[in-house]
């Protein structure tokens, strides 16, 4: 079962530098000017044994070529032609593509869609001039790789290989893990994947071992010649040593090999010799094994030729994996006898594999939540991001994202919300929609591998959604219902589950990636159904070996003290094999059940997580309950920054006052006192914001109450705020936003790096009378000036206030602003003035 091995080339940059390439000069442009030099280097690689040449196109893209006078098409075709001449039919030529050179959102400013366009252009250029395959290498951001792979697959038919660059910690600079890379890219259907650059061969061993657990695709290893001398940038390892150290990788299951920084044709020659020796040894070994067939499987596992059995599965963000449990309980029961013979440790490992409860947080969903609906309608991403953070803090493993609401363009909103959520939490996502377009939008924007929620037994739905699931390599939830509705018996639901799995498999989606939802019905309406659901869950998990999902809380709808029914049903369902409960993780009692179950099932080894969760709680209970709130007035609570107390006092005041009265007579005067103290330097910045945060708790309560009864949102006026184009320092703007919101203004926060047109558009659309702009750098004040000019040109009469570290009163006036806000307090005074004037005019 020897895998076909492929030898790649070695370093290019250092070879070209030796041939006259200057520091910081572009190698691809150098190739245009000195094709013979590049050809000579590449030919020497072919002579050393390279079977694939990377064309000299590593940094070729529209972004990096800007200002060089060359187009992407020119540079790609010239350099591919050079590689083809050097290969002379003895090696394949890869279009070599590296990072764009600018970081993608959310860390950087380049949008995913723009990155896709940049890669698509390179891919089309490479495909049209006859590259044999496309390789994306030295990547550090999984999101960027995803854009690249989609661009390659949607714009060419060529094989796609990818390698990323890791640190010894097993993460890339941006935090992508080996497992997340493997899950995501295997799902997207690349043809080979692996690791390049980063480190020397020795340091890559554990990373390649890890990679093998997560993919069955061919693995590429292209290390540096050891580690560089920091002072000179030179690599120390010699060719012979490099060759020797590469010998370990075929045994670890890798099959494509080459060298990166600091390597040259001698290294590739040494590598080729090593691989030839390994082939020889293996051939002898295989011959020796004839006749002792029984041992072959365990032997192969050691040498890495059979890896299917060990393959891990899961969903992920770029930096975090939610690993799916083992294939089925039945398998465990069946095997336990044998395992016990060989020792207890193995058994507990096995159980851990099988019982993995992954909590899916359900709170990002507008259904039945007025306040959430309002946030969606107002495009208030902050509210949604807060819901994401809350659930992550509460212990969710995966977040469900549902943005379906009449009047909202779902696909567009899905993209926006997915991006917003993954900018603040690193949990894997579940894209929840019945609209195929919204599902695709969500999967595309997701940085990692997601679950799709959901398909059902309807043929039409399966045909529309499963191809999308397959394309993005997602896992999928199948609801056990169809055109005929929800069947009443477990047997009928199981039949639908079988149909869904069969359909998924026909699209190439493995059954391990199908999660079945046997559906929770409300016992207050259909009491007998709870038992049927549990029966179906048990069968689906134990006999069919599939993962089970259930939206749990529906069980208790319409009953008093729902928590008892919900948590009891959850426990029973987990006992039956529910491993993906969809719940509200903010409900403490529900998460308590999950932690208890994990301890009882053995998943939580030594009950460590359970102990950690509740040890702290015991201490809290022992402490005397604070009765401070009862005696404290709201001014003191705000000043001290006490959120809970402010919320409690707001609640109390609402018994006797209207919402508006509480705001105007209680919360705002309290904030005024704080502002005054700040101005007089009696308190400093953290205290000011703590107070604002605390007041926020009061406002949130009021907003939720108003939304719940369907009332108009209370607003003293709308303000658009933005950190200007080119700038991402938005902390100042965020402080001002929080404080203005607390004074009852509705802030439409456009975020950071906001294009000029987007500000103008928002101002016109929302008809606001005040706009706040922030810029921190001298380089971005010019784009502030442009934004102001564009606003004036639009003819809108809005007032503009500006702030930021490099601005002064006179500078602000110079660039055409109406007001300069030196701090958050000043911006409140400006808002008061502007809106007083506005209402006076009316």
């Amino acid at each position: 079962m020897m895998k076909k091995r492929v030898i790649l080339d070695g370093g290019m940059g250092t070879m070209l530098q030796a041939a006259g390439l200057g520091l910081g000069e572009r190698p691809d442009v150098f190739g245009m000017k000195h094709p013979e030099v590049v050809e000579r280097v590449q030919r020497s690689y072919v002579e050393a044994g390279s079977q694939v040449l990377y064309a000299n196109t590593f940094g070729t893209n529209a972004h990096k070529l800007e200002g060089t006078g060359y187009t992407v098409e020119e540079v790609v075709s010239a350099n591919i032609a050079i590689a083809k001449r050097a290969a002379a039919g003895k090696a394949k030529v890869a279009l070599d593509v590296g990072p764009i050179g600018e970081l993608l959102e959310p860390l950087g400013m380049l949008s995913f869609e723009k990155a896709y366009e940049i890669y698509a252009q390179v891919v089309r250029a490479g495909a049209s001039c006859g590259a044999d395959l496309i390789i994306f290498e030295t990547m550090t951001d999984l999101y960027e790789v995803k854009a690249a792979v989609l661009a390659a697959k949607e714009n060419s038919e060529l094989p796609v290989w990818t390698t990323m660059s890791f640190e010894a910690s097993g993460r890339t600079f941006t935090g992508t893990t080996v497992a997340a890379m493997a899950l995501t890219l295997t799902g997207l259907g690349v043809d080979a994947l692996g690791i390049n650059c980063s480190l020397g061969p020795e340091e890559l061993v554990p990373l390649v071992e890890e990679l093998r657990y997560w993919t069955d695709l061919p693995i590429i290893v292209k290390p540096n010649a050891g580690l560089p001398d920091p002072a000179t940038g030179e690599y120390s390892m010699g060719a012979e040593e490099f060759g020797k150290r590469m010998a370990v990788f075929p045994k670890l299951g890798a099959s494509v090999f080459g060298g990166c920084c600091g390597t040259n044709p001698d290294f590739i020659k040494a590598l080729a010799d090593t691989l030839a020796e390994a082939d020889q040894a293996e051939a002898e070994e295989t011959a020796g094994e004839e006749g002792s067939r029984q041992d072959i499987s365990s032997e192969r596992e050691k040498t890495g030729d059979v890896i299917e059995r060990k393959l891990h599965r899961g969903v992920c963000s770029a930096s975090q994996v939610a690993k799916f449990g083992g294939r089925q309980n039945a398998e465990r029961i069946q095997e336990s006898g044998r395992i016990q013979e060989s020792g207890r440790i193995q058994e507990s490992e096995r159980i851990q594999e099988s019982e993995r409860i992954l909590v899916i947080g359900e709170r990002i969903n507008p259904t039945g939540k007025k306040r959430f609906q309002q946030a969606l309608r107002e495009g208030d991403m902050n509210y949604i991001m807060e819901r994401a953070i809350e659930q992550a803090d509460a212990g969710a493993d995966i977040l469900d994202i549902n943005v379906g609401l009449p009047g909202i363009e779902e696909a567009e909103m899905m993209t926006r919300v997915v991006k917003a959520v993954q900018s603040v939490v690193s949990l894997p996502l579940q894209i929840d929609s019945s609209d195929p377009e919204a599902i695709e939008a969500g999967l595309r924007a997701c940085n990692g591998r997601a679950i799709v929620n959901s398909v059902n037994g309807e043929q039409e739905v399966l045909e529309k959604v499963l191809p999308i699931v397959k394309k993005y390599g997602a896992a999928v939830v199948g609801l056990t219902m169809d055109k005929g509705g929800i069947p009443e018996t477990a047997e009928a639901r199981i039949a639908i589950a079988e149909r869904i799995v069969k359909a998924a498999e026909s699209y190439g989606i493995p059954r391990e990636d199908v999660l079945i939802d046997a559906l929770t019905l409300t016992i207050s309406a259909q009491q007998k159904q709870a038992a049927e659901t549990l029966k179906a869950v048990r069968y689906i998990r134990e006999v069919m070996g599939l993962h089970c999902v259930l939206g749990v809380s529906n069980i208790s709808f319409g009953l008093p003290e729902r928590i008892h029914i919900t948590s009891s049903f959850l426990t029973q369902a987990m006992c039956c094999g529910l491993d993906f409960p969809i719940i509200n993780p903010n409900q403490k009692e529900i998460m308590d059940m999950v932690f208890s179950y994990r301890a009882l099932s053995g998943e939580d080894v030594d009950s460590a997580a359970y102990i950690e969760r509740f040890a702290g709680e015991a201490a809290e209970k022992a402490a005397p309950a604070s009765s401070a709130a009862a005696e404290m007035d709201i001014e003191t609570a705000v000043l001290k920054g006490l959120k809970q107390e402010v919320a409690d006092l707001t609640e109390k005041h609402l018994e006797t006052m209207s919402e508006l009265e509480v705001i105007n007579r209680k919360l705002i005067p309290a904030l005024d006192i704080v502002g005054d103290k700040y101005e007089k330097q009696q308190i400093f910045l953290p205290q000011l914001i703590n107070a604002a945060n605390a007041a926020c708790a009061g406002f949130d309560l009021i907003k939720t109450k108003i939304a719940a009864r369907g009332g108009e949102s209370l607003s003293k006026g709308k303000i658009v705020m933005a950190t200007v184009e080119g700038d991402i320092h938005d902390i100042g703007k965020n402080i001002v936003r929080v404080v203005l919101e607390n004074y009852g203004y509705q802030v439409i926060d456009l975020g950071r790096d906001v294009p000029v047109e987007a500000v103008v558009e928002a101002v016109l659309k929302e008809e606001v009378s005040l706009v706040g702009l922030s810029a921190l750098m001298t380089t971005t004040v010019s784009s502030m000036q442009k934004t102001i000019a564009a606003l004036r040109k639009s003819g809108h009469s809005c007032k503009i206030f500006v702030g930021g570290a490099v601005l002064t009163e006179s500078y602000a006036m110079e660039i055409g602003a109406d007001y300069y806000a030196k701090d958050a307090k000043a911006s409140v005074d400006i808002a008061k003035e502007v809106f007083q004037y506005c209402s006076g005019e009316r």
Partner: protein
Amino acid sequence: MAGKDIQARLTELNENEILLYLGYRGQKYPAEVEAQIKRCEKDVLAAAHPRLIWRRLPVNGELFSALALEGKDIKELLSGCREAVLMAVTLGPGVDRLLTRNSVSNMADAVIMDACASTAIENVADNFEMDLRREVEAEGLYLTDRFSPGYGDLPLSAQKKLCAALDTGRRIGLSLSPSLLMIPGKSVTAVLGIADMQKPLRKRGCENCSLFRDCMYRRDGKNCQGVADQQKKRGG
């Protein structure tokens, strides 16, 4: 091998410097705020993953000359120097993520963490400077101050040249936006010189002064040496 032992090190957060970034003017503040600052420091230290890349180049060599760094200040810094050192340090994207997340969930924490992170990257840069100074002095040579793009008359655009020469994207994951912002945000690039003779070093800021918390100049928003102005500039 020379310099092999110099690692990116984040050793401590100067609390005076954190308070300085937070606009502290000697107010009394409650223990809760003190604890909050401590907690934020801990979170920043946990999220930070400092990385360093540097190169020693002969000042008169082809590689350094090709950089063509502009301005009188850099000439002055390197006058009498045989070698130049290019450096870049970053706390990594984990800190940026921490700040983004907290500016949604807890703005006050975000502001404090931002101050802690600014202090942290200064510490990483200072530690490198200290380690390199020790090494250089062991060779019988002297290290100058470090000088960053945006200081004096060295334009911010020099950032681009330093990042390209050090290949910071590939080596430490540091890249530039088109508007020359460094991403991750908490990063520093700089040039230093290695000279045969000791050159005068700059004065340090208020944050390193033992009178910081009670200084009467600071309470009025002033300082004893015009150092605050320098601090302000560095904020960019």
